[in-house]
């Protein structure tokens, strides 16, 4: 997870992430004297590069002190510090992600109330009635309206999802993500139909696709339906 995050920061793509992935790839991870034997550039140059990067973190209260790692390799205290920092960063990130989710839910509730005047129906039962009744005026530019969204869950919850998978049952994190995405997509559908004189959207269909990509999973929702005015 941490590696995932780091590899996404352009600053680290060149030096830190490449070096780290090479370290992990090498068989002698723990033998600090052998870590650098894979090098393309010399060991000193690598150390210098990493020291520069570690130096960037020196001023951040709890993230400094990794220059010791470069001098003496892994030790128990460095490993404990690494775990502690990962937990602190994880907690901060989890809080930000939680806050953003809460903000999104508030937005959804507010927007749903605003768009209440357009009803969305999935039922095909009275479809022929809708289609044939001349009372249902056909409006809009094309007749079919669509809404879509691509939403991703946060990287910090990957851990809680992994834990939830061990025990089975509901994975609430995904349930919430899909719920939010569908609500957002329906809001977009209504926004598409808004201002076209539409009061009902009938025969609504929904598509869900999961995006294939590295890192946190993202879902793609498309909803569409035919707008009529009754």
């Amino acid at each position, binding site marked *: 997870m941490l590696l995932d995050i780091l590899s996404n920061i352009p600053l680290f793509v060149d030096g830190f992430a490449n070096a780290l992935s090479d370290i992990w790839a090498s068989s002698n991870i723990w033998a600090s004297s052998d870590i650098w034997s894979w090098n393309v550039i010399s060991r000193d140059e690598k150390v210098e590069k990493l020291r520069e990067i570690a130096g960037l973190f020196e001023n951040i209260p709890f993230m400094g002190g990794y220059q010791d790692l470069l001098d003496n390799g892994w030790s128990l205290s460095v490993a404990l510090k690494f775990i502690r920092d990962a937990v602190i960063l994880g907690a901060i990130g989890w809080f930000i992600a939680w806050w953003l989710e809460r903000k999104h839910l508030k937005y959804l509730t507010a927007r749903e109330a605003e768009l209440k005047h357009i009803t969305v129906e999935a039922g095909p039962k009275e479809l*022929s009635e809708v289609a044939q009744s001349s009372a249902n005026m056909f409006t809009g530019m094309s007749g079919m309206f669509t809404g879509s969204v691509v939403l991703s869950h946060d990287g910090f919850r990957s851990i809680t999802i992994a834990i939830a998978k061990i025990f089975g049952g509901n994975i609430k994190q995904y349930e919430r993500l899909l719920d939010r995405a569908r609500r957002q997509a329906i809001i977009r559908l209504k926004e598409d139909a808004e201002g076209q004189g539409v009061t009902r959207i009938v025969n609504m269909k929904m598509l869900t696709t999961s995006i294939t990509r590295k890192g946190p999973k993202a879902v793609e929702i498309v909803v569409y339906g035919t707008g009529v005015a009754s």
Partner: protein
Amino acid sequence: MIITNIENVPGRESYENLGMVMGSTVLSKHVGRDIAAGLKSIFGGELKGYSELLVEGRASAIERMTDEAKALGADAIVNVRLTTSSITQGASELLAYGTAVKLK
């Protein structure tokens, strides 16, 4: 061109069936967008780059379907369905298909 996803065009009962028409697109964003999406997904939320991709892809799939229908001399497409699939990383396919009809 009238496009609906129900079996008829409301208020217009009779029409002549001209057959199925479809349009599809496979779109991808440049790498910069992928990196931005990667960064964004640290905290979760909407991946705007991919959302835009989806909207553009859908518009052009429907446009291609419409072009095909126009070539047949249709003035409406009914029973339209959309499908998506993710082919590979950062690329998505959109397919739109429906029945081209001529209204009477």
